[in-house]
């Protein structure tokens, strides 16, 4: 299976990169292959699509460096190439086309510079047909690290990975209307610390995106402040007992690696891409512990969801 992520039309975005990887997995499973070769293509002269004009020649290196671990999440990853010279990619593309290897996006879509990086159409269709999904894994090489991290820092506690979208605090602010209310999340974590002292929250996301008041909470660890990066964080999501967060990149990781989750503040516009009506509680492939919440969250809502899923998981673990 061949995956082409050409940044001249595909976005620099964590969620979209993970959705692309999931589509690759689905394509590979459908075609009955167990090897995925990924091509990331960047033209340094014009490194982004017109929809991301803030990515330019001078900063694309930082941005792709930040995003790289997202492309390591396929369990069948056999090779990964970053090509900073699109003409060099063409010979590879031609070879793969001649061999008629399955591709995502298809050759024709690539030639028309089109990529469906949002919708779950193929994923839903595969699930409807086969009743399972080829899930993402922790980034290559990071799984064992995440296990060691849990042993060392979480000490057998119930681990909740948290990501609160805070675009306004990010290095490249965009779509700020999608941000979640930070005070509500902070109050939720503070209340949870009192009611559930056996729970530890791992707060994920860019270093600039969390509030320093978090450092005072007894039940919170911040991997970025401990010197870790995105690869470590994605591995922690995959190894967490529960993910809670706004609809964003980390939520996509939780969605596609089959951990229990509560995803909040989902854009209503997104409904048409995931084939779930606004207000729908689960994705087509979601289970009872994988919950969608379409409105702006409050601390009470968060605590209710947390206790509901926590109780169910604890009962399941104990039974």
């Amino acid at each position, binding site marked *: 299976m061949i995956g082409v992520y050409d940044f001249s039309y595909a976005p620099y975005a964590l969620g979209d990169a993970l959705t692309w990887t999931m589509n690759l997995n689905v394509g590979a499973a459908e075609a009955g292959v167990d*090897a995925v*070769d990924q091509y990331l293509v960047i033209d340094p002269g014009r490194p982004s699509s017109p929809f991301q004009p803030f990515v330019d020649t*001078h*900063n694309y*290196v*930082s941005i*792709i*460096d*930040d995003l*790289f*671990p997202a492309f*390591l999440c396929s369990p069948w*990853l*056999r*090779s*990964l*190439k*970053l*090509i*900073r*010279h699109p*003409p*060099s990619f*063409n*010979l*590879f*593309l*031609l*070879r793969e086309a001649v061999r008629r290897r399955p591709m995502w996006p298809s050759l*024709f879509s690539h*030639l*028309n*510079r089109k990529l469906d990086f949002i919708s779950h159409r193929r994923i839903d269709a595969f699930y409807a047909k086969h009743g399972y999904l080829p899930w993402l894994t922790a*980034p*290559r*090489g*990071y799984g*064992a*690290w995440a296990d060691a991290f849990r042993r*060392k820092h979480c000490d057998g506690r119930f681990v909740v990975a948290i990501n609160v979208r805070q675009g306004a605090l990010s*290095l490249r602010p965009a779509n700020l209307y999608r941000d979640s209310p930070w005070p509500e999340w902070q109050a939720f974590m503070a209340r949870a610390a009192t009611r559930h002292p056996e729970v530890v929250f791992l707060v994920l996301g860019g*270093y600039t995106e969390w509030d320093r008041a978090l450092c005072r909470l007894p039940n919170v660890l911040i991997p*970025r*402040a*401990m*010197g*870790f*990066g*995105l*690869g*470590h964080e994605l*591995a922690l999501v995959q190894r967490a007992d529960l993910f809670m967060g706004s609809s964003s990149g980390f939520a996509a990781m939780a969605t596609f690696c089959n951990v229990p989750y509560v995803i909040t503040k989902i854009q209503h516009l997104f409904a048409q891409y995931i084939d779930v009506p606004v207000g729908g509680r689960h994705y087509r492939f979601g289970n009872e512990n994988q919950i969608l919440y379409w409105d702006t969250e409050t601390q009470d809502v968060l605590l209710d969801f947390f206790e509901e899923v926590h109780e169910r998981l604890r009962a399941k673990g104990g039974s």
Partner: protein
Amino acid sequence: MRDDFAKVLRRWLFALLSFGLRVYRRLRFFPFTLCYVLLLSALRIVELRRKNRLARVGDGNGVASLSPLRVMMWLDEIGRELKMLDDIGPEPRVRRFDVCLKLSPDAADANLHDVFSVLLTSSRLRSMGFYWDESALREDLPLLQAAGDRRTDTVWSTLRDDLRRPGLEACRAFLDADHQGVALPVAASRDAHTLVKRQGGAAYAVCLNLPEEVRWLAGEIAATRSDVKFFDIDPMLSGSPPAVAANVLSLYAYGLNLHERMAVAQTTDVYVGRFDEAGCAALFAGRPTVLIGGGAAAYSEPLSRATALWLPDPSSPAIRTAVLEFLRRHMVAAAGIG
């Protein structure tokens, strides 16, 4: 006459190609894009036939974790060979190159991101490939390297480079070399300059990145050199507590990524710490550098060069004196007294 004709023909072909590319940029959809793919693939095949494409293959030879430091040394080595070609070599010049890395399928160490970050610092690198499977690498090599070319002792070598930990001789040669430098992201360099300017002011600035075994050294040299501002970039992944002294700014918990730590190492006046990627970045930038540990296990003799001192054995009792003397010497030189 014949030469003139060839020159005119070449110019016309070039103009035609430029025009084609300009048209393509406006018509980026099928079937124009297909024509573009076919045309550029043909050009690429010609390039490969002419053997002026450079691709190097690094092999971890089964090590579970590929060292970012080793990859950085390897890139520097290729860069030096290309520089030699630039200076004296045959036409056409090789401006950019490709690398392939053969990794262990059982890789269990979480450092692939650091290897990637290191590769991104080479401005001449056109493409990089990570391969966890030998057959995938073999499939791709004919599209990257000229077939049958085996000029083994040159930059054109198609033999695989061993990327396991380097031996003593390799480390010595590396320290003696004329390095090619790294191109860090502009934001990382800018932020490092701003940080050192704000926190260090006019003071002499030293970047600390001490190995676990000599963490104690931070407090000692900070107390002895109270006139110096120290920037401790140790990411503390091993979990030991940060050094506390008034003139030490611990960047632990700043959440710096590898590029940002390398930028701090390049921005300060002196680097004292691990023989790792940050140490190499300081060395490449021509900063006075004390490298501690790393390199070869069986070797413990210090190695001194004009702006670099390598102390391979962190347990050496002379380490404190050596570091302080190195600092003194370079501070005197920087002040223009000596």
